[in-house]
């Protein structure tokens, strides 16, 4: 059943999109991430204009994150205080990001920046995560005890001013690192059409040294706030949110997310991380490597801007 999308102005196969939403939702529930990094490239490959894909993804990510965050709240696994500080930065980042994306699109460089961001961020994060998870898998297979986590916290986290207490995360740190992290992720969410969980989660563990139990819930909470704002801003400033596209995706997405969350308890954490790392790495390479090959068609029409 084909459906003509009113904003994207292309005809798409509706059941296929719902299935795609469910698959990405499942992956997102399984790994506790938004899944935007996977969905946006697939939509672009399907022929949806990149600007519409990036903007409509914000709605999808917000929906699936809401559905997961509620279950994390019940388990008291969300640090609302730290999430709020991150989101404060995220709001600034989203506003900057939407304007940046608008400007890049007018310059004709949006594709380049999107592809490079995917290559750099997904490549680096995927690579690091793959090495780390393979090491812990090998260590467990050979019967060694898990590597003790470095408890020494970086001094700059404590030396900075504006300290604040975050009881649920058992942290007493400066608000500057989480605010900056929030800004950065907010910009990425607008430019790459992602929630930013794949950057936020490792950064919260390795930079902010948050306890693992509250990381995923807190990152999803911050993602809801940032992507809600991004979605409204993209619609208001760029008129690129396709409500039909977003609805098709999120119908499958919210269901898939719940199933994924249930399935996640069946796997070991490091095996899940290795799998996620592989997916992240592949998507990053797929999006970015095109920049290095001689294009078949040296000219491109810039669409979506009158």
């Amino acid at each position, binding site marked *: 059943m084909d459906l003509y999308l009113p904003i994207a102005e292309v005809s798409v196969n509706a059941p296929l999109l719902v299935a795609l939403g469910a698959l990405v939702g499942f992956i997102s529930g399984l790994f506790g991430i938004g899944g935007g990094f996977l969905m946006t490239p697939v939509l672009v490959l399907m022929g949806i204009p990149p600007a519409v894909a990036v903007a409509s993804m914000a709605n999808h990510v917000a929906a699936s994150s809401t559905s997961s965050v509620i279950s994390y709240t019940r388990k008291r696994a969300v640090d609302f205080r730290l999430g709020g500080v991150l989101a404060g930065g995220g709001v600034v980042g989203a506003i900057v990001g939407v304007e940046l994306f608008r400007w890049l699109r007018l310059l004709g460089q949006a594709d380049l920046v999107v592809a490079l961001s995917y290559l750099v961020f997904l490549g680096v994060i995927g690579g690091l995560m793959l090495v780390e998870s393979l090491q812990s898998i090998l260590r467990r297979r050979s019967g060694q005890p898990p590597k003790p986590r470095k408890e020494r916290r970086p001094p700059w986290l404590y030396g900075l001013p504006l300290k604040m207490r975050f009881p649920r995360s058992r942290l007493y740190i400066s608000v500057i690192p989480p605010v900056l992290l929030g800004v950065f992720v907010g910009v990425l969410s607008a430019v790459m059409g992602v929630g930013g969980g794949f950057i936020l989660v490792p950064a919260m563990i390795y930079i902010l040294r948050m306890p693992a139990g509250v990381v995923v819930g807190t990152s999803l909470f911050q993602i809801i706030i940032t992507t809600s704002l991004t979605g409204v801003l993209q619609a208001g400033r760029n008129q690129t949110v396709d409500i039909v596209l*977003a609805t098709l995706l999120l119908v499958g997405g919210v269901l898939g997310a719940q199933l994924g969350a249930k399935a996640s308890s069946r796997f070991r954490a490091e095996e899940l991380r290795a799998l996620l790392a592989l997916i992240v790495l592949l998507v990053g390479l797929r999006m970015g490597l095109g920049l290095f090959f001689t294009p078949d068609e040296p000219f491109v029409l810039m669409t979506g801007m009158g």
Partner: protein
Amino acid sequence: MALEIPSPTAPQLTASPAAVSAALTTTEVRVTSSFRGAHIVLYGAVFDPTTKPSDVVVIVRGPEHPIRIARKTKVGGLWVNSRPVVFRGAPGFYMTASTRPLQDIAGFGTLRRLGAGIDHLAINAPFEQRTETRYGVRDVVVSRLGGDYLDWRRAVIRLKENAGLYDADDKGVTFVDKDLFKAEIDLPTKAPIGTYQAEIILFQDGQPVSRKVRTLTVEKAGIERTLYLFAHHSPWLYGLVSMALALGAGWAASLVFRRN
């Protein structure tokens, strides 16, 4: 009923008793949620008391839309878009259908004057190279005198042809009876919204002798139109509503699954 539109560039017709007439099977294409392009048939008749051989050319032009195009160039090992170049006056849709290849029907000058054929499409590039600022960004407007102007022009046409928006069919007009002819117009899903003009020209001895213009509108209809207008007329409210829907769906899903 089709409307007769007096065109400012109406060609000088050679005096002849022959005349052409035509009608479209559809004059209004409605873009609804099931839109997958449209197929329109044009029927026409040639009235000619003499028995001179006649040729019919049908030219369909979609609404004009400035085209922004960039060329990929290699910068430090990466393929990067150049600054966009703007072409004005290019129709968003253009097709010709004729009984024979256009160059066999009329001479270069005649075709150029009528804008008949993709090679004669009046894509207006200004004579001087300059930059203009739109939306706070500087666009290069390519010069018609520049050395690589033809490369750019060919690229515009190639990309539009690949998208199914430009087409030339030199067997597209077929005579179904002695004086009755038929042409088919295929609008792809990507066909722009707006008013289209179908120009039907009768040629005899390489000269246009009779010309008719029919119009065709492509417009969004039903829910597509409502959503499109909503998104463009009150974008902020649209953004809020679609985000509220998304958050509501997420919340509803978690409720449903909690019960299970």
